[in-house]
């Protein structure tokens, strides 16, 4: 399925938005983005995954607006995956 991965704040050094093919697994979507980034791919993966290969706890990741820590909803055709580093304000 085709999904869109959008990056924000400091993660935009890799690009703003990526349309990728993936199996339906969230991790797979990020691997697809890394592939597109070629030699910057490894650096990108370090921003998303920890040393154990799990998604970093300090990332704010939403699928169609729903934070994956609240509910991991299923990816569908056209889903928007948004990734933020730790940010805040008032």
């Amino acid at each position, binding site marked *: 399925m085709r999904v869109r991965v959008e990056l924000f704040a400091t993660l935009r050094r890799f690009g703003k938005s990526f349309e990728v093919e993936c199996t339906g697994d969230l991790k797979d979507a990020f691997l697809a983005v890394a592939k597109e980034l070629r030699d910057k791919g490894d650096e990108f993966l370090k921003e998303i995954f920890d040393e154990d290969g799990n998604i970093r706890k300090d990332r704010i990741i939403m699928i169609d607006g729903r934070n994956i820590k*609240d509910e991991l909803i299923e990816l569908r055709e056209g889903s928007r995956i948004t990734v*933020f580093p*730790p*940010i805040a304000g*008032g």
Partner: protein
Amino acid sequence: MANGYMDRILIVNLSDESIRIEKINLDIARKYLGGKGYATYLLYRYLERYEKEGKYPKDIDPFGEENVLIFATGPATGVSGFPEAGRYHVMALKSPLTGSVASANSGGKWGPYLKFAGFDMVVLEGKADDPVYLEIVDGSIEIRSARDIWGLNTFDTTRILSKKIGDKCSVACIGPAGENLVYYACIINDEHRAAGRTGVGAVMGSKKVKAIVVSGDKRPEIAKPDEFREKSKKAIEKIKNNPVTGEGLPRYGTAILVNIINNAGILPYKNWQTGYNKDADKISGETLTEKYLRKRIACWGCLIGCGRGTEVKEGCFQILNTEGPEYESIWALGNSTGVMELDAIIKANHLCDELGLDTISMGSTIACAMELREKGYISDEELQGLDLKFGNSAAMVEAVWRTAYKAGFGKYLALGSKRLAEMFGNPDLSMSVKSLELPAYDPRGAKGIGLVYATANRGGCHVTGYTISPEILGVPEKIDPLTTEGKAKWAKIFQDFTCVVNSTVNCLFSTFALGVEDYAELLSAVTGFDLDADSLMKIGERIYNLERLIINKLGFDGKDDTLPKRLLQEPMPDGVAKGHVVELEKMKEEYYKLRGWVNGRPTEEKLKELDIP
């Protein structure tokens, strides 16, 4: 006096030009700390005195002699090494906008400089016959005529008054909006910092006080310098190493929130008709940094530096040297009004600082007028040429100066959205609580902040208890924004802790990195008081309840702890929160139980438990 305080409260009666100085009462300081807490205590004592004299709280005229305006610092303000201790708190007995207590907080350097001038607080009673300004320099006080500067904008006022003193001074002043008693006029210090909300600038204007200039070489002394040095080092490391305070905020400022709040489906669009705007990136922090940022700006003693020095180099909204806008200002002047041009928003924000207007109330009142017009409640004739429709950037910018000068339709905008909407026939289109316009988070998609809006003492306010932090940002932990479970507990904890921060007085952003234990350690070393996390939270709870007691006397109770009809009854039309409303009653019931309140009023047992007043 080595406890952080300067041990001097300046009380000026403007009606008879008398000046008196009182010492800090340490028994009160142990209970209420300083800043907001001590000011709230002083306001309560004024209310008690007025009641004995037969003047009832509900009869107090916000623009009358009996209103009291207090500028308050805390024991930590101006203490070098105390993280982010450059702020001060302003309170008045009654806000002209809300009728509730007026309360606002500002950064820059005015707070520390008041202490360097030798004072902890300035209390303004009565009102002057002719415009005056106060000059507080190295412990001495002068009340000077402001005839020559009345009418000037905040920038000119600041520059003229600063020149008389020299480099090391700070000016807090009002602009034309405060002089003209616009209900949400603010106090501006250091040109671009604002004690923004609830019309404190209008109260200052009603007293005919144009400015307070502060300067001096005194320094607060602290109780345990060695212990403080150690705790300070630890706290500063936490702030530097925390990803929010050490990288996110310094790099992007608060505007970084635009995209995340929009993606969470709760960035109110076109006067809260929905919570998602596909074009939000046009006015985001990322776009601000890329196209308009000149430099980072920090308040006194601040390591974070979230302030933005910005410029619009060309075009009809050109402004070459300005600061901001913050997230709330971008949202209110932009997304809420449908204006997606960041240069217009920057210009409008600049005008708000120049003329002395609260950006949140300004933008929200414009958005309210836009929806009233769209739905046929305001005619074109009544607009007198101001084409207020969603997305019209030129009209939005024009509305700002028209409001400050009450010119044309501006005289209606100057009343705030609640009175405007009532006047033109649909009060439900004012997105406000206790007449204070709501800030930039739709609680249909973050239920906890809805409870905070409803129960905040000064009116619809997010900084009173910023539950967006756990609900959306995941700090200190992630909680589900779409449920009501547990939100009452979070609201209470955040509200009580924020009272501590506003009484310390330092910047709320420190709390992304520091917890109440850190505050207890630092404050113990500064004041010599024996404080721990529990006793500090008790102080916060006491302050919140005393402030609630004041607003009960002013006529507010459980019926006023509510939300606009749109948020209670109109399901969110789209986005991740589609179909949701705010189930307020459920959360309120639990909240009142936790608070020990009945119908929005603290019980006698609760007051006794907290030793109030």
